């Protein structure tokens, strides 16, 4: 089964785990399975409109999946998918 690795600040919402086995033929299905297992991650990964929040980056191995087929990228049983956030902020305006 593919494994999804979480960054430190999301682990408290997954019982403290850093790596979770997920089911899915592609990344979208794997993310859905992650949310099924740990529903409290939903609001931190997805906007109210259901799109991935802008700080969420997904890497398959060393590759940003935006440079592959995005969330439609197919997963193999031994794949390791990592969520690596961009950290950003700043004053208004």
């Amino acid at each position, binding site marked *: 089964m593919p494994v999804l690795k979480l960054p430190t600040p999301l682990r408290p*919402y997954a019982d403290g785990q850093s790596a979770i086995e997920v089911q899915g033929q592609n990344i979208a299905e794997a993310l859905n399975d992650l949310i099924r297992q740990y529903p409290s991650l939903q609001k*931190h990964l997805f906007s109210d409109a259901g799109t991935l929040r802008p700080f969420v980056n997904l890497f398959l191995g060393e590759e940003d999946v935006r440079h592959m087929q995005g969330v439609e990228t197919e997963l193999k049983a031994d794949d390791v998918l990592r969520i690596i956030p961009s950290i950003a902020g700043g*004053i208004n305006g």
Partner: protein
Amino acid sequence: MLEIANDLLDQIHTHLEAAHPEEGAGFLLGRADAARRVVTAILALPNAGVDSARHNRYLLTPKDMLRAEDEAERLGLDMIGVFHSHPDCPNLPSEFDRDWAMPWFSYIITRVDAGHAVSSRSWRLSDDRAKFDEEELQIISLAS
């Protein structure tokens, strides 16, 4: 409550003053449990934002995040938060800060006026992402 030694806070302020009038940023490393959060190291990093945005935005890339996770692991610590500056503006979280915030992390925001760090406050995103709650920033004085 977030505890930080005065010399580490001084290091944060020095980095953010050097970045003025642009925003500066970096990671907080340390230990955290339900009762206590302690910063024991920092990782000051360049603002990866584009030239035209760094006056009011900071960016730490996924590569920066991986570097910080590796550094925390090497030191036997956890990543517990982020620090950044608000140049010539109050050290209150902005809507943009909230939109981009990670849960659980402590966010130290430092007001830097005319190149001088004025004050730092620490904030945490609420679980429903609706707001930031201030957490007490306790500065521990170490003998020099």
